[in-house]
């Protein structure tokens, strides 16, 4: 009896601890689409592809833009385009399915609810990613949302967009090098030795930092922090304690191995040059 009188505002979605992982490629793609948007278009939207991990995390892996038109509360989405692109993408990578959609701009607006409804028909519980390419607050705001339907009985009242935690994964971008991706123009891709040098320099800088910190603490300039101390001691402890003679032997053995390989490949190269000369010079008259 009591239950029938109570009107329940239901949250229809169950997953509460949803989060999203977004790789740098998707952000790049969105920015590129935004730069190439048609005249007068205020924002670009597109489909996010990826998969849902067993723990409920949405792993976004790819994206493509979908042309659309927005005017006075009406949204026209090129659904045919969306489907063609989806089929094309799945030919390459069948494991990537629709997980949601993205839009540029800050936050959610009226049109978003309509588009979200469309994507809800494509996949259950899609996520919505917004990238504020306009730097509206002078900040770069990237947010992910899921939508909850507020329903009164069977009657849909509204959709509520709830923000979910977002994890920007930068490993791929890291592989290319942030310095390369950050600049508008880089003359050449750094080669192996240059990146190695940069890494070594960073390592040395870190060691210098640690020295400085330890010296400061010892001399009483800085407040000691037990956690930092423990981490430093772990780092030092991870170096194997070896007697000098054993270490030298190890080092020299490896050095010799590498020198041997070096020698071998150099000798192969000179043989190649020689063989080539003999081969093309050889002719029977």
């Amino acid at each position, binding site marked *: 009896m009591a239950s029938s009188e109570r009107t329940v505002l239901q949250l229809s979605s169950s997953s509460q601890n949803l989060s999203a992982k977004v790789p740098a490629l998707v952000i790049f793609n969105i920015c*590129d689409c935004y730069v190439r948007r048609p005249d007068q278009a205020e924002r670009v939207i597109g489909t996010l592809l990826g998969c849902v991990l067993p723990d409920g995390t949405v792993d976004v892996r790819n994206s493509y833009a979908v042309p659309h038109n927005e005017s006075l509360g009406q949204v026209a989405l090129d659904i045919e385009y969306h489907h063609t692109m989806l089929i094309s993408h799945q030919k390459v990578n069948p494991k990537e399915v629709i997980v949601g959609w993205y839009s540029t701009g800050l936050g959610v607006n009226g049109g978003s609810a309509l588009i979200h409804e469309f994507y809800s028909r494509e996949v259950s519980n899609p996520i919505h990613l917004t990238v504020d390419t306009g730097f509206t607050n002078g900040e*770069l705001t990237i947010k992910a949302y899921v939508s909850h339907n507020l329903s009164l009985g069977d009657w849909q009242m509204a959709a509520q967009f709830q923000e979910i935690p977002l994890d920007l994964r930068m490993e791929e971008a890291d592989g290319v090098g942030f310095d390369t991706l950050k600049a508008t123009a880089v003359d050449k891709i750094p080669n192996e030795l240059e990146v190695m040098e940069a890494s070594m320099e960073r390592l040395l800088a870190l060691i210098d930092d640690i020295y400085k910190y330890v010296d400061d603490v010892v001399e009483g300039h800085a407040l000691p922090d037990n956690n930092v101390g423990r981490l430093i001691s772990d780092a030092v402890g991870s170096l194997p304690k070896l007697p000098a003679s054993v270490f030298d032997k190890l080092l020299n053995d490896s050095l010799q191995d590498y020198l041997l390989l070096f020698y071998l490949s150099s000798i192969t*190269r000179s043989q190649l040059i020689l063989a080539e000369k003999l081969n093309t010079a*050889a002719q029977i008259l």
Partner: protein
Amino acid sequence: MANTMAKSFLQVAATEEAAPPLRVIQMEGVAILKIIKHCKDHSPTLVTGQLLGLDVGSVLEVTNCFPFPIREEDEEIEADGANYQLEMMRCLREVNVDNNTVGWYQSTLLGSFQTVELIETFMNYQENIRRCVCIIYDPSRSDQGVLALKALKLSDSFMELYRNNNITGEKLREKNLSWVDIFEEIPIKVSNSALISAVMTKLKPNTPVTQCDYDRLRLSSSSLMERNMEFLIECMDDLSMEQQKFQFYYRNLSRQQAQQQAWLQKRRAENMTRKAAGEDPLPEEDPTNHIFKPIPEPSRLDSFLITNQIANYCNQINGVSGQSLNKLYLMKALQED
């Protein structure tokens, strides 16, 4: 009217002919990331895709790309692939992506990309687009924290020889072409839109050390070296096979020449006797005789490609061992500290 049109087309063609040679590939960050994603996702399967962009003077801009599905040896599916390509191009044009093919990319395993197929694909592309490039990405080397991205094209002189099927010793000597001259590597520039540059500056994590640094400073590189050496040895075997082919050819050739000489001497002696007897001399050549049939010279292409691969492996071994030496000395310095 039609005449002037034709003329102007001709003029256009003529001016294009004089275009400056390709000096630099300018890639957008988004294209690089897309290539890396596609190649890594499917590694160790080798994959390819199409590069889109613009041809501006001596710079070839690569602004976007799209992957090809993994190909299967089936005609129906092949037609499907062509459809896929057209569809994709059409779709990308709709969102204002540069809709101009400038080449293709492919992944490789430790740089074993110098194959006849690569050359053939190149020739196919070259037929349709005058200036094209192949971007090679090696996902196996990214474990070392290295971005192994290369832009290649075939050299003009090699292309000419290949088109005329003329890869024989004589022609190569004439053109002074050696195995180093098959491929030309073109320097890659990276460019990003101002928006991406701003976004990246905001997003750059503040950690002083990245995963890449760990990868680069890892001491062990033996598995990489091992595989490199394995490939090198395989190539060496192939090369010696090729050499045997040539030896066989030369042996046959010299045998044939000796036979020809013997035949000629016999014929001359016969002619002398005929002359003495007052008869007409017999001709000094007999095309019907099998010993005058030229023996086909084996193509040098295979041995050239193998040589190229070996040189590539040698370079990689040199590079990795050089880096490892650096790391060992760094280790030594740390231990002494």
